């Protein structure tokens, strides 16, 4: 759907993005994570054809971004900028109508009516954009970014500053996009949001530090661990498991944490061994470090 190949961008002597490559497929939400100034917005702007890479290129299924092709390729991408950027003295309908016409849609009024319906803002169509809440503005801005029905949608910190309810509603819209086979690139600092909706995560710090699914990143950094809660003290059983070929076992009160290569496959033999040894197994689960831990370890590791 969209390929970024060795994207590099310099601003004078400052390197903003260094040799970033990835490929996006339809129906995925691709999260760009990274500290402030890591190059997330610059990467999005290069993907959107707003700024040229110093080297490398962006390739859409229909062609490559270049100064000559940028205007037409910009028409195939929906970009929700960090700020909604609505014309506040104009009403919602007119805000959308101008963009429908800028995209050269054949029936702009119809496209706007459809967008108002899809995003549940028909009853606010005559309201001035300046009078809307931040959540509604963001909703209108997303409707605007999707008016021309792009298959690739770039979202730059879309839920930043939204209240939990509005952020939740916005995420629902993003999930709806994913389910309708859109490719969504989401730049955010909200790790909980990434956890909920992202299929893959790219951690940027000028260059690409890591790129994978959240689950694979967890395993890569923290390994896989089984967490078993017993009806009695866990300590006596830790030595038993070490002797059974699981060298990394931690006991804490009545909980055992065991490093394994595959959480689901290792659980049955371990539980069996514990039960045979007289343990009362109350609960078994795969331990999942929070994405925040994964992120911090990646960013800290890169800093060092």
């Amino acid at each position, binding site marked *: 759907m969209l390929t970024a190949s060795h994207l590099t961008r310099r*601003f004078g002597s400052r390197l903003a993005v260094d040799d970033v490559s990835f490929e996006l497929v339809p129906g995925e939400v691709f999260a760009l994570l990274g500290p402030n100034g890591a190059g997330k917005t*610059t990467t999005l*702007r290069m993907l*959107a*054809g*707003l*700024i*040229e890479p110093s080297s490398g290129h962006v390739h859409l299924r229909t062609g490559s971004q270049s100064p000559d092709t940028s*205007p*037409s390729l*910009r*028409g195939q*991408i929906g*970009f*929700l*900028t960090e*700020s909604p*950027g*609505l*014309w*506040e*003295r*104009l009403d919602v309908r*007119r805000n959308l109508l*101008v*963009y429908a*016409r*800028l*995209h*050269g849609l054949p029936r702009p009024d119809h496209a706007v009516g459809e967008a108002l319906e899809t995003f549940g803002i028909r009853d606010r169509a005559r309201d001035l954009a300046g009078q809307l809440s931040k959540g509604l503005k963001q909703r209108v*801005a997303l409707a*605007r*970014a999707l008016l021309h029905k792009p298959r690739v949608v770039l979202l730059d910190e879309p839920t930043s500053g939204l209240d939990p309810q509005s952020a939740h509603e916005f995420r629902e819209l993003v999930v709806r996009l994913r389910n309708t086979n859109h490719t969504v690139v989401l730049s955010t600092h909200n790790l909980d949001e990434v956890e909920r909706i992202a299929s893959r995560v790219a951690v940027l710090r000028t260059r690409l530090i890591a790129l994978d699914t959240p689950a694979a990143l967890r395993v890569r950094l923290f390994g896989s661990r089984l967490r078993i809660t017993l009806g009695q003290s866990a300590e006596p059983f830790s030595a038993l498991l070490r002797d059974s070929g699981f060298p990394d076992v931690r006991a804490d009160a009545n909980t055992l944490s065991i490093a394994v290569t595959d959480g689901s496959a290792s659980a049955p033999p371990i539980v069996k061994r514990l039960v045979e040894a007289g343990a009362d197994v109350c609960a078994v689960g795969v331990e999942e470090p929070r994405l925040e831990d994964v992120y911090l370890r990646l960013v800290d590791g890169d800093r060092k």
Partner: protein
Amino acid sequence: MRRILALLDKDLADLRQNPSLFVPALLTGFFSILLPFIIAIIIPAMTGERLSDSSDFELVVETYNSQPAMRGLTPEGVIQAWVFQHFLVLLVLTPIAGSMSVAAYSVIGEKQARTLEPLLATPITTFELLTAKVLGSFLPALMLSLGSFCVYVAGMLVFAEPGTYRALFTPASLGVVFLLGPLSALVALQLAVCVSSRVNDARSAQQIGALVILPIAGLLVVQLTGSIVLTIPVILAISAILLGMNAGLMLLGVKLFDREAILTRWK
């Protein structure tokens, strides 16, 4: 073309929502209408001394009363017609000074309202964007100029000597109103839009843009001093220069408009 119209339509709708932006243009228009009336009608009425009583205007009467548009006018009417004709340049051009704030704010205003980035993310080209922005300030300025002209003529019909209004319907005067005025306006506003796309604060854009009006005001001065008489050939020659300048300014504007700098360096 449809993208230019879409953005132009938006700019005009935005202006309609914020009519206070026209206040400077309306004020300058009003005062430029008032000024010749003060000189030619009000002061003589207040002092009781007609312009034709003064020997200063003898040369004006001698020179102008033979012109077809002045034929049949009284000496007072000839002098009034001369004053109104010469102040026509001011009348046509002053609303541009007022619209300068709209032009100067056009690009930087979008940036400050954070509406420029989503706009640049559409297929709109720099040429289309700048054309829409120039027209967005030019069309209201043109409407104001033409409106001022109508008020000017109406004022002459009511307050001036009978028949003086004919002096404004000569080819040269109409050339000033319908050719020189619009083309000068376009040059001034294009420059202001260029400035607006290069500076990162609206006040600088407005101040630098306002300088553009100086050469145009200079034209009024040289005309009043008699150094230049705006005959048809002179008007056509200046118009040709202005036309060339407009084409050049558009090319320059497109070249100067640096999308990347605007997005990444302007705060």
